[in-house]
């Protein structure tokens, strides 16, 4: 029992409840810089090329598909009466949702002082930006004549054509573009101190120039840090409502309508929770292999994985509550249309989509209640993939199953995607992974300065940070 210079006895925490350190093996500050920067220095490893080449091939396919759709028209999609929204909107919402974890980790967890975020925020933010870029392709394309996309913005023009501000699709334009802009700013600003590190370590003139250009003359002075931290806090404050607003507005695309299965008041928080859920699924999918390949186990520790599993579990359970409430209120309302819409989801021709969603999003994440599963990286990786699949099917269920049987049986149909839908979707993976691979190759995928800030060496009250040993009697 420690005394800590007071008459109050402070109980020594039982050893089993001690919190695991955020950086393993007491790694030094220099080790952190070397470890993270080494990923971008030297020759690119073989595995990187092995991943990049197929990604580039998929990206090429995406470009071809975009050219084909622009030149031919979006009639090449599988959208057909009565399902006039198909894979385009499903994939838009799916990619946007994936982006949410990055901003949540970087902004909201920063405001909540969750210091574990430092190891994963950089990669998650990059993931956000690339995912939003993939998402943006769909609405830009679905207007049909992409050369009129600029009409989406309220720009004065000779025909006095203005956007329809009462349409939630217009709200999407403003919400997503704002979200993307602020996310890029936030990501870039966080990079500045690390870019300066890269600049100072660079061995070629080109690298020195490139990193130096984007490091904006960072010297690490007190004044720079002071301004940086103020700006970081302001951007975190700005990003936080954006995280919530973007997917809330996406949910309004559906909820403000009168379509059974879409018009339900819980949609905004349900969509936000689902987006964070899918985002964390993707973060786990990306980081679990990367931490092994790059030997980052001491930076992205099992504690980090454990905490992200818990966030996945929490948000998956919230999504489960929303599924339950939708079904319950469909029954409770007594509306035959609502009731049928939900029975049709579970037992209709697309029953497999509904139950895939339930199993992947609600049932499987419950395994994370068990610590052994949270600490088994193979299990976590498989579950994270299932979360990604489940969340794709959630959008499929909401969009296709709600539309394929309209109010009159004469308006019933069965939707199937076309080869163009499928190839375009696969192509967006090419874009995403190409950008992500370039990111991990040329930029520090771990926030070096932030990780250093959570080490004992950075804590002036810790012996490694310069504190006298007697102050630490409690923990000796």
């Amino acid at each position: 029992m420690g005394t800590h210079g007071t008459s109050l006895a402070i109980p020594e925490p039982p050893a089993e409840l001690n919190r695991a350190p955020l950086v393993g093996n007491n790694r030094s500050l220099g080790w952190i810089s070397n470890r993270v920067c080494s990923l971008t220095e030297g020759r690119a490893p073989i595995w990187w090329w092995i991943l990049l080449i197929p990604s580039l091939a998929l990206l090429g396919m995406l470009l071809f598909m975009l050219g084909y759709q622009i030149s031919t028209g979006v009639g090449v999609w599988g959208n057909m009466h009565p399902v006039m929204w198909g894979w385009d909107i499903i994939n838009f919402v799916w990619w946007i949702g994936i982006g949410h974890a990055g901003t949540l980790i970087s902004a909201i967890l920063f405001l909540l002082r969750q210091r574990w975020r430092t190891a994963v925020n950089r990669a998650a933010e990059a993931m956000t930006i690339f995912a939003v870029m993939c998402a943006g392709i769909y609405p830009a394309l679905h207007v049909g004549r992409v050369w009129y996309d600029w009409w989406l913005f309220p720009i004065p023009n000779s025909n006095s054509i203005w956007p329809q501000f009462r349409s939630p699709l217009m709200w999407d334009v403003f919400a997503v573009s704002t979200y993307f802009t602020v996310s890029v700013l936030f990501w870039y600003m966080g990079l500045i101190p690390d870019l300066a590190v890269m600049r100072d370590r660079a061995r070629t003139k080109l690298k020195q120039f490139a990193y130096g250009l984007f490091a904006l003359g960072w010297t690490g002075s007190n004044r720079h840090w002071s301004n940086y931290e103020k700006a970081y806090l302001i951007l975190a404050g700005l990003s936080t409502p954006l995280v919530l607003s973007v997917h809330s507005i996406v949910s309004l695309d559906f909820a403000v309508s009168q379509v059974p299965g879409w018009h339900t008041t819980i949609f905004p928080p349900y969509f936000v929770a689902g987006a964070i859920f899918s985002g964390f699924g993707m973060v786990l999918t990306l980081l679990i292999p990367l931490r092994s390949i790059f030997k980052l186990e001491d930076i992205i520790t099992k504690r980090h994985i454990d905490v992200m599993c818990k966030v996945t579990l929490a948000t998956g359970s919230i999504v489960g509550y929303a599924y339950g409430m939708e079904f319950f209120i469909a029954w409770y309302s007594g509306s035959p249309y609502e009731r049928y819409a939900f029975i049709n989801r579970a037992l209709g021709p697309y029953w497999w989509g509904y139950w895939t969603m339930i199993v992947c999003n609600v049932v499987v994440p419950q395994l994370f209640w068990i610590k052994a599963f949270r600490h088994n990286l193979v299990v976590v990786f498989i579950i994270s993939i299932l979360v990604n699949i489940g969340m794709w099917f959630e959008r499929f269920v909401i969009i296709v199953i709600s539309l394929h049987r309209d109010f009159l049986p004469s308006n019933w149909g069965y939707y199937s995607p076309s080869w163009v839908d499928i190839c375009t979707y696969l192509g967006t993976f090419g874009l995403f992974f190409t950008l992500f691979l370039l990111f991990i190759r040329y930029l520090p995928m771990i926030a070096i300065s932030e990780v250093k800030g959570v080490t004992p060496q950075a804590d002036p009250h810790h012996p490694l940070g310069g504190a006298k040993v007697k102050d630490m009697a409690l923990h000796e």
Partner: protein
Amino acid sequence: MNKNVDKTGLDLSRWRQVPTMLIVFGLASVGLGFLVQPPEPIRQFAFSWLLSFMFFLGLCAGALFLVMAHHLFDAGWSVPMRRFLEHIAALFFPWVFVLFIPIALMAKPVIYPWMTMTSPDHALHAKHPLFTIPGFYIVSVACLLTWWWLSNRLRYWSVRQDETGTAEPTYKMRFYSCLGIFLFAVTLTLAVIMWMKALQHQWFSTMYGVYYFAGSVWITLGTTYVITLVLQRRGLISEVLHNHQFYFLGSLLFAFTVFYAYIAFSQYFIIWNANVPEETFWYVLREKGTWWWVSMVIIFGHFFLPFLALLRIDVKSIFPLMVPLCAWTWLMHFLDLSFNIMPVLHPSGFVLHWMDIGCWAFMAGLLAKAFLRNFASTAPYPIKDPRLVEAMGLAHPVPTQISGGELDETDEIPAVHPQIHGGRL
């Protein structure tokens, strides 16, 4: 020991009689309410009782949620506040049970029109068997028993840890919180549907359970802030309290101010925009007469005022501003619940009846008395909680919200209050 200082050292010499006075005042007000003879005195009483019941139910449910959230998040900073939150949650039994009895008795004859419909409409028929008299009582008892069981187990293991200081109670409390959060979500939603939404059983909204939850946690946070301040001023938890706890509570209050507004706005906006008569009638009723102005007060008082007030980082630690703001949360939540419940009784506009005040004062006094008795029966904070050191802001090998960084406080902390038992050398 001074006779006015009870076992826990909570000096109530100036306030000891307040709960009793509230009970007497409440009973007198209800009596006065009957004397002034409103058009339907029994109905007025039933609705006033339901309104106050839902108010204090939200406080107890909010406390239970915060305790469970503490364990689920493995939080450290909130340890000093957890004990009194456990006591508030423990008011479910027997007090919330007892307070529910008048609702159970008046449900059929007075409160819920669906119970006495001779020819059920489609909306009622569709809800069979949930909306039957046995269904109502089964759900009500199941909800109350669930909350009692959870709050009882959580407090039991918390107090047990005061003696042992081992990890086992922590694991037990985590187990009950894991299980409890599911039960809590289901039961609170059902209770709100059966006790509040069922006043107009034709209306439906998937958001309604979340709506009540958001408002309830909001006032619980306001209450937590004030109780923490009182206990700190009395020296009961000051030695384990870092000044950042007030900032964190203020931040959470701010977060739930926004969350409530987000939920309330989303519900309204989606219904307004779709403009389906089966849903809009609920809001149409609440836009008539002076209810319109009540809705305006809720928009500006429940959201804009606390939002703007709490926006500045320093306000959260300025007690002369925060205490009135916390009191304001009670007023706004009461008004919000009135907006939900009372238009059924007074469709032409808002009426503040003596019985509203009386029922509220009676329950406030009764529950305050019970809370103080509970509070005196244990240590004022979990004295051997493994995370206590984090709450105190002492040096910690792993950075947390307070400890392990620039906020560490390694200076000597003040001597402990003499009335605290346990946890001392």
